[in-house]
């Protein structure tokens, strides 16, 4: 085999290896892409730090709350109010009722999604039960709060926003690993965009 062939083989093997690495790079790229373009209705899983969102020039919109249980998740999970009328530029607190009907303690994680998706980047949350895992003892119930605001730049065509939460059973889901992720600030930096369902 001559040197020219060896060089070609090296180059081509690098391409193959590079594409394998690229396939894994697609995972963060996908998140970054959604973040930059605001596609997919994903919203931030951390409290907003923006100031000055509040003002008096807001307009009327309505928010509809929807809850889902993933797979076999046995918890009772529903919004306290299904639809509320709010003004943009003003904080509102809504609550979700949750109960663990089973005889064992369980841990849950809620994942939000917004429709229409172009409303997602205008929704800010000061606090949300989805920012952390929720643990309930057997039979325990709770009211989970979410404090949110829509900024005034919300496109005029949007008069009704749907905010949906899906809760996942993460009890057996490598607790240590999850907690580690949840607590590290890196995790929140890297995963600004969380998945929609």
């Amino acid at each position, binding site marked *: 085999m001559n040197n020219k062939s060896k060089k070609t083989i090296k180059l081509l093997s690098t391409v*193959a290896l590079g594409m394998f690495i690229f396939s894994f790079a697609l995972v963060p790229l996908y998140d970054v892409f959604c973040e930059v373009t605001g596609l997919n209705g994903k919203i931030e899983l951390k409290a907003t730090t923006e100031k000055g969102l509040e003002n008096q020039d807001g307009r009327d919109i309505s928010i509809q709350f929807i809850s889902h249980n993933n*797979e076999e998740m046995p918890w009772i999970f529903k919004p306290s109010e299904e639809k509320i009328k709010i003004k943009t530029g003003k904080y509102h607190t809504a609550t979700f009722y949750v109960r663990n009907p089973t005889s064992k303690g369980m841990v849950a994680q809620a994942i939000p999604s917004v429709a229409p998706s172009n409303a997602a980047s205008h929704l800010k949350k000061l606090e949300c039960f989805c920012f952390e895992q929720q643990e309930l003892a057997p039979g325990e119930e709770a009211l989970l709060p979410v404090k949110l605001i829509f900024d005034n730049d919300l496109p005029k065509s949007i008069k009704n926003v749907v905010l949906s939460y899906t809760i996942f059973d993460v009890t057996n889901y490598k607790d240590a690993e999850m907690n580690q*992720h949840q607590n590290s600030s890196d995790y929140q930096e890297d995963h600004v965009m969380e998945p929609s369902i």
Partner: protein
Amino acid sequence: MSAVIESHEQDHHHGPRKGITRWLFTTNHKDIGTLYLWLSFAMFLIGGAMALVIRAELFEPGMQIVEPEFYNQMLTLHGLIMVFGAVMPAFVGLANWLVPMQVGAPDMALPRMNNLSFWILPFAFTVLLSTLFMEGGAPNFGWTFYAPLSTTYAPPSVTFFIFSIHILGASSIMGSINVIVTIMNLRAPGMTLMKMPLFVWSWLITAYLLLAVMPVLAGAVTMMLMDIHFGTSFFNAAGGGDPVLFQHIFWFFGHPEVYIMILPAFGITSHIIETFSRKQLFGHSSMVWAMTSIAILSFVVWAHHMFTVGMPLAAELFFMWATMLIAVPTGVKVFNWVATMFKGSISYETPMLFAIAFVVLFTIGGFSGLMLAITPADFQYHDTYFVVAHFHYVLVPGSIFAIMAAVYFWIPKWTGNMYDERLGQLHFWLSFISVNITFFPQHWVGLAGMPRRYPDYALQFADWNMVSTVGAFMFGASQILFLFIVLKTVMGGKKATAEVWESSRGLEWTVESPPPYHTFTTPPKVNQ
């Protein structure tokens, strides 16, 4: 045989080894090509048998023959076997036989790796097919193996499926490296890139596509493996992943894969049409540019498989227009083939019949592809039998007809014997008629709303499904005739000349039929 062996500087064995070791240890591109083609044919029959199980179940509405669970396994394995076992190895086999002979090289550039990339395939398919006998059954999530069907809800055998995909990917990557190195470095003096025959060109482009996307497929199945066994959450929303991400990664591989399965067919068709039209191919360089642009565009259209998954309007428009853009270079190719035949002195031997059928039926498949590319229309067509009809039109009378055309075209060269023209014509007409009986009605039931991937269907689809099943069994039976014709040709027949065809062009027709075990040990001169 030994009479035609030329002496060789470094090579001290003259001609092939005896017995089974010839095939196990061979580094000869012709032997390996033959192995690939036979493996592909075996897989074609196995995958075909699975298709017939599917069609038999769909002969009448209601559940008659198999359990829904087994139906899903047949559906999944049929797709995987046909894509990775039948079409891809057949093209690699043709590349092994033809690329070195068409560029005037003595062999593939990396003969030992060539042996390896073939011989890991039987293991991969044994692993894949063995899942049928495992507890929980074979993979049942469709050939696209969307997460979470293939992760959270998968049968335990999914790990074996992942392993076999890894082996298949490794084989394809080695094969494509081999093809590229051969083409880039071993061309005969005087053969510039633009003078290369179109089959070689089509394979050069295909090999680059393989090299770019097979590692992505490997990445996708590795992520699945980690999700299933190592507690990661690439595709699990509960842990911060996203199942939609799987579909993006899969189709980033999957769409170029579609062109991997059709580009070599374009090359084959070009050779056959120019030969039997007794004219030089119209627009050689435009063919090259068309294939290159199709290959490049194939990387930016993947989400047209996912219009209904949920995407912003801007993305849907982009993927719609990018997809429709592919019709332009494809149209150039069809135009060139027709222009080659225009005022040609055409004769209709079996390879030409298959090639013309390829052009006509592939174009039908292309048109239904354009219909599917229209986003709003796709919401209607998505996951119906219209899609099934579309991709079977581009794959069966597309890729598979081109492979059969290639076998009829080059088998006199490979074996030194002419095939039986009468039987060849019979095989063509049986295949041509039955393939249309099978797949054309699927357009109609699809447009009427019959969903794909179910073992049962509503009563109003009964008549056309029955027709489709009859066609499928006819098509299956015709391929037994094909096997018979190939075996008959291998055993004997009218002796073929070196040129074989009246107007054959290219270096492979300058060596005798069958070619000596080692061809072009001294490079030929190319001065066209």
